[in-house]
C-alpha cells in the first residue's frame, strides 16, 4: 500500500525565514511525485512534478527536490502570501487513471 507522510504538520515562519517541508513516501514503482498548494476554502493547485531521484524544480521562492525515499519543498525568504497548506502526492506506474496518493499536508504560516 502506498504511503505518504508529511512533516511537520504545521510550521510558522517569520517573513524572510527560509525553511523546508518534508514528504516521505513508500510506493511500489514511483512514476512521479507531486506538490500542490491549497489555500483555505479552495481546491489544491498544482505546483511541481518530480520523476527521478536528484531532480529539482523551482518556482519563485519554492524549490522541490527528490530522493529515493523523500522529497523536500524548500522555501527561500518566504512572504505572507506563501501561507497555505502544501500537499505532497505520489503516483505509481501500475493502475488505471494514474491515481494519486496524497499526504495530509503541512500548514505553513508566514508572519509579517
Amino acid at each position: 500500500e502506498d504511503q505518504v507522510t508529511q512533516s511537520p504538520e504545521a510550521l510558522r515562519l517569520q517573513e524572510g525565514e527560509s525553511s523546508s517541508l518534508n514528504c516521505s513516501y513508500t510506493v511500489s514503482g514511483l512514476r512521479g511525485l507531486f506538490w500542490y498548494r491549497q489555500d483555505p476554502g479552495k481546491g489544491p493547485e498544482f505546483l511541481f512534478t518530480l520523476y527521478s531521484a536528484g531532480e529539482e524544480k523551482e518556482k519563485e521562492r519554492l524549490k522541490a527536490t527528490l530522493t529515493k525515499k523523500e522529497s523536500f519543498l524548500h522555501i527561500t525568504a518566504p512572504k505572507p502570501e506563501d501561507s497555505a497548506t502544501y500537499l505532497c502526492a505520489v503516483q505509481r506506474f501500475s493502475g488505471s487513471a494514474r491515481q494519486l496518493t496524497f499526504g495530509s499536508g503541512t500548514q505553513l504560516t508566514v508572519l509579517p
Partner: protein
Amino acid sequence: NAGVTQTPKFRVLKTGQSMTLLCAQDMNHEYMYWYRQDPGMGLRLIHYSVGEGTTAKGEVPDGYNVSRLKKQNFLLGLESAAPSQTSVYFCASKAAGTAITGELFFGEGSRLTVL
C-alpha cells in the same frame, strides 16, 4: 474559463437523507475524480472515471455512487447520508495526455455536514 465547478458549495443533511453533488468541467478532460478531505487524513479517492460512461471505485467508495453520463459532468451521490460522511468533497479532472504528469485541476470543494 470556469475550469472545474462544483455545486452546491455547502449542504447540511440529516442522517438518512440523500443528495447529489455535481461536478462540471469545461476543459474536455477525459479523467474525473471525486475526493474527500478530512482533517489529518489528506485527500482520499472515492470514485473516478476514465471516460464518458465509465466509473471505478477508489480508496473509500462505500456509501457513495457515481455516474458519468456526459463527458463534462461527474455526479457523486449519497443514498443514505451518515455522520461519517461529513467532509469536504473535491472534484478534479485531468486530460488523458497528461497521465504521467499528475496535474489535476480541482474544484473549490463542497462542504457537507450530516447531522
